[in-house]
């Protein structure tokens, strides 16, 4: 590493310069729906260290700045130029990329605290946020942990203990086995007693990691194996428990806020039913499902649980709610939740500020009657994932272009990345949390459509296609949702937006207009020319446009920025102020305003457009080129059934076959782990294994050859 970078003075100068750019980009746009009512006379911490990365570190720093608190970021070496490092006042490197060596490295973080003199630590979510050891070590050093007491973390962190406490506090709980399951056979026995379906989950877990549902004995055995492996790799603790699985439930959680003086509030609910693999995708507050009585009942139980463990700080009590509005305690998260912004939107509270105040020992500022539900807020978790593979398998890459839709009103984007950032295999693939707000749910959802359409993300595969489909789906719009929403609505997997005939025409017309604009521009040469240019400009184009194997003959005429496209006898008018360099295409199609995005435009007529969230590949050719194309030889695609490729970047956990083995269709061949999710790779056909190209421990990239079958 170059020496000047190690010189603190120079580093600070660089940061200062970068910092200015950053704040310029962020300020000036009102994006926060919460208010940080900061009383300068209320003494607070001088300096806080944020033991986290990414968007949540940025989120905490934002409030700290408003409160006049200095901030310290910690980072791994690959995160040296991450946004959270730039926006913090100071930054300390705590180790190499793997989380176990950096963000989970307590020794290094303790050193960072000593080195910078931070008086308190905000842990964010994940990492050390619910680690009682960490909280203990901080307490031993006299550093304030911005979160609940060790006792509460411990009590609620253990699923078995938390259930017992909840029962005692008269909180509704799910029937199940209140103890650690020894092995797969015991799991099968207990499952038989409770009755299928059952849920096997990690005792220490959270966030859907190490969690499996089983419908029979065989699945129980398999689930036990997977969950204990995942639990071990995610939490270093492979204890599992089993409980009755509530079929088709909603996941609704109550935000609580409690101080160190025995007062506690509930800040209404968040509906988090839209999940894939037990991880939340779209959340909203409030829930369309709760009536005021149920809400109050849930809120009061949540508060009584908080009181039972002498909880202080912000926390979340998660419930499963069945179709009859019976609710059961699931777990309590003793930290700030990912989806906290929607609660901030409808209540106006700054949860981070409240956590800091509480940690400093202040009493709650609000009474239960002060807590409003103002309007409606929706949050979409924008991930670097491929939504076409199991509703989202992680993808990695560099954000070559990145533009948040912040010029739209009532849009909040919590992110910790910027153009040029890398999404790596080391950390959670979340790009941002996109929050929209409206007086009504309808307004918030409409705003979400616009925000997703105007969100420019290039360089990594992202899940905007899925998010955009969910929020306009009739079942979602009517509020008819459950945790099964995705598998029920897309039983064969997510396939992207299905075009109606009218939408298809809009898409074809836009591609044609774009093609004509590009053709015309390619004839515009400026400056003095020795040999004159004879442009072949015409006012009428005959084009042939291909879209998923359908071929359409189009006639296009143009006057200025207005294009009239004739498709199968129907006229489509396309106009708008856009140019060929911009990522966004704000256009008017037959009087309707739409924002499309041009993802690709090649010399050979390929055009990719993002339309209604989904990206569509089109090919626009002149009639001549199209008619000559029929002579072009078909390229034979690779036979994929005998080749197993890694669907995502990650590491190989286990390989269950060797060359010469016979495998049956659907049999497990190997297990790939990425971002702490284990994925079983299975054979696409019954065949003999020809060759194995990976071994346990290997790091593989997306598309890498793993195993060949004969």
């Amino acid at each position, binding site marked *: 590493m170059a020496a000047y970078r190690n010189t603190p003075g120079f580093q600070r100068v660089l940061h200062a310069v970068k910092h200015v750019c950053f704040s310029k980009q962020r300020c000036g746009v009102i994006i926060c729906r919460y208010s940080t009512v900061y009383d300068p006379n209320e003494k607070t911490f001088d300096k806080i260290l944020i033991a986290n990365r990414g968007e949540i570190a940025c989120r905490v720093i934002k409030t700290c700045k408003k409160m006049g608190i200095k901030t310290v970021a910690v980072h791994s070496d690959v995160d040296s130029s991450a946004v959270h490092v730039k926006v913090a006042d100071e930054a300390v490197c705590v180790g190499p990329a793997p989380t176990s060596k950096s963000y989970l490295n307590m020794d290094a973080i303790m050193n960072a605290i000593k080195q910078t003199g931070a008086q308190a630590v905000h842990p964010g979510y994940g990492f050390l946020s619910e680690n009682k050891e960490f909280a203990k070590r901080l307490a031993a050093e006299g550093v304030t942990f911005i979160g609940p007491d060790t006792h509460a973390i411990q009590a609620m962190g253990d699923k078995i203990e938390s259930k017992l406490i909840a029962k005692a506090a008269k909180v509704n709980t799910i029937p199940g086995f209140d103890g650690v399951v020894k092995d797969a056979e015991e799991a099968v026995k207990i499952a038989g007693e409770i009755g299928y379906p059952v849920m096997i989950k990690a005792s220490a877990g959270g966030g859907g990691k190490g969690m499996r549902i089983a419908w029979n004995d065989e699945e129980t055995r398999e689930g036990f194996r997977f969950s204990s492996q995942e639990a071990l790799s995610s939490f270093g603790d492979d204890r599992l428990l089993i409980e009755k699985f509530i079929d088709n439930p909603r996941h609704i959680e109550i935000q609580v806020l409690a101080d160190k003086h025995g007062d506690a509030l509930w800040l209404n609910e968040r509906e988090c039913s839209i999940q894939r693999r037990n991880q939340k995708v779209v959340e909203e507050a409030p829930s369309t499902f709760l009536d005021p009585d149920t809400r109050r009942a849930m809120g009061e139980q949540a508060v009584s649980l908080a009181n039972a463990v002498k909880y202080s700080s912000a926390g979340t009590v998660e419930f499963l709610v069945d179709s009859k509005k019976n609710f059961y305690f699931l777990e309590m998260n003793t930290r700030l939740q990912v989806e906290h912004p929607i609660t901030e939107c409808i209540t106006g509270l700054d949860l981070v500020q409240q956590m800091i105040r509480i940690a400093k020992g202040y009493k709650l500022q609000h009474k239960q009657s002060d807590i409003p539900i103002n309007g409606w807020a929706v949050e979409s978790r924008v991930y670097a994932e491929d939504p076409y593979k199991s509703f989202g398998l992680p993808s990695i890459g560099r954000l070559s272009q990145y533009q948040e839709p912040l010029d739209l009103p009532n849009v909040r984007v919590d992110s910790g990345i910027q153009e040029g950032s890398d999404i790596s295999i080391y950390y959670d693939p979340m790009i941002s949390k996109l929050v929209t707000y409206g007086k009504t749910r309808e307004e918030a959802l409409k705003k979400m459509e616009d925000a997703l359409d105007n969100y420019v993300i290039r360089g990594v595969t992202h899940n905007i296609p899925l998010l955009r489909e969910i929020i306009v789906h009739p079942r979602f719009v009517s509020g008819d949702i459950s945790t099964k929403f995705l598998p029920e609505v897309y039983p064969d997997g997510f396939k992207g937006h299905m075009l109606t005939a009218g939408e298809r025409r809009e898409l074809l017309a836009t591609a044609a207009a774009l093609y004509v604009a590009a053709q015309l521009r390619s004839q515009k040469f400026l400056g003095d020319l020795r040999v004159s240019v004879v442009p072949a400009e015409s006012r009428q184009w005959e084009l042939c446009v291909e879209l998923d194997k359908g071929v359409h003959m189009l006639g296009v005429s143009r006057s200025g920025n207005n294009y009239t496209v004739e498709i199968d006898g129907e006229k489509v008018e396309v106009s708008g102020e856009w140019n060929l360099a911009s990522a966004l295409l704000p256009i008017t199609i037959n009087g309707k305003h739409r924002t499309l995005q041009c993802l690709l435009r090649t010399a050979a007529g390929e055009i990719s457009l993002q339309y209604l969230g989904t990206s569509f590949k089109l090919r626009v050719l002149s009639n001549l080129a199209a008619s000559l194309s029929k002579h072009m*030889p078909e390229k034979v695609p690779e036979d994929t059934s005998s080749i197993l490729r890694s669907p995502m970047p990650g590491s190989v956990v286990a390989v269950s076959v060797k060359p010469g083995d016979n495998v049956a269709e659907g049999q497990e061949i190997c297990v790939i782990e990425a971002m702490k999710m284990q994925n079983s790779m299975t054979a696409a056909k019954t065949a003999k294994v020809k060759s194995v190209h990976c071994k346990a421990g290997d790091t593989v990239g997306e598309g890498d050859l793993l195993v060949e079958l004969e």
Partner: protein
Amino acid sequence: YRGWCLQNARCYSVNHLSVQERIEKKRKAALTGGGQLRIAAQHKRGKLTARERLELLLDPDSFVEYDMFVEHRCSDFGMEADHNKYPGDSVVTGQGRINGRLVYVFSQDFTVFGGSLSGAHAQKVCKVMDQAMMVGAPVIGLNDSGGARIQEGVESLAGYADIFLRNVMASGVVPQISLIMGPCAGGAVYSPALTDFTFMVKDTSYLFITGPDVVKSVTNEDVTQEELGGAKTHTTVSGVAHRAFENDVDALLNLRDFFNFLPLSNKDPAPVTECHDPRDRPVPGLDTIVPFESTKAYDMLDIVHGVLDEREFFEIMPNYAKNIVVGFARMNGRTVGIVGNQPKVASGCLDVNSSVKGARFVRFCDAFNIPIITFVDVPGFLPGTAQEYGGIIRHGAKLLYAFAEATVPKITVITRKAYGGAYDVMSSKHLRGDVNYAWPSAEVAVMGAKGAVQIIFRGKENQAEAEAEYVEKFANPFPAAVRGFVDDIIQPSTTRKRLCRDLEVLASKKQTNPWKKHANIPL
């Protein structure tokens, strides 16, 4: 004589009619080339006919054909028979427009005697080349020929030589592009080899001196046509071809796009097209692209794409000597040539192949008034016997030579390493770089700290300390900046704005080299 005229007055009008008919007949025959059967066979091979190709390459109705009535002159082996004469013979020639700009073209017709080169064929090609040079417009050749017209013997060989001579005469006067769309074997390969750019069509084109049969009989090697001279071989292994395309349609549409980057001749400035991408657009991603560890790789193409108009980059030889990146792009609408070391491949070092690839590209840009932007991250020349025995000294000298002799605007951005002789080579200030920038991450030094310390403090203790001192002193842009070897240290995100501004100023740059018959580049 007068009487003869009168006598024939009546016949004349009859004759006149029959001439009209014959013109029509010949034109019609010329348009169908070798006939419907052979056209069908050509299509079946997945190839277009010579005329279809031109129709697709040129603007609608812009093709002006020459020599449609030329026929071959061979009278041996029954070639004089009427059914062996095809109006226009085995090549279609003329001029036309691509996006309104003039171009001379020839397109070999495989349906006529397998596109083989007769004296007449060569004469037609020479005619358009001569005129292209006089007018000052590029020549595009679409090659699809079985080789020499064996029936004509030496006449055919003479024809090749006539074309080669014109290729050489036109070199550096007008851009010459070859698109190989079928076979091109034997001596014929030297025409594309002499032109500025050779493109190929995947699976249906090949280039080699001798085919697989001769190879087998001489060296006893078993090799297929595709392995010996297919698009993949020449774009990845031999470096003979500059790019390959999926099929005929794809290749011709891409060629139209490529043509827009080129000036018509060495008398014309680099073309400027309408640009919608703001010239002062900041590129925030560049501030974080260079990793803190100087041993870690990053993709130079990320920098290149970020800076250019609309991220559009026509890369030349993308799959050959990937440790250097070269290609055409636009800055604020103006064509520029991009050269960049690629840290992702072999640390971006210079070796035999990358030096030759870079040198040829730089010389093309210089010949045709295209400004050169160089992005430098080079740890040096690649060491080793393979390289030394391969002649890295004379090949490396080519790149040095090319940058040094170039008089077009030259702008250099040092993004990270610029070590040793390679620093000098990569369009340094000392080789008449017009504007040389360093990013804050730049390190201009004789070598990496470790190696330097081992030499300076050989056998002494405290190597680590000395290394740190060396890093402090040299692994930063200051030693170069205080000496004026870089003109400024710039914030990476402002690179596009800076380059656009400089290119505008340098557009009127005038610089000449001393008079010479021709220079003597170390070939």
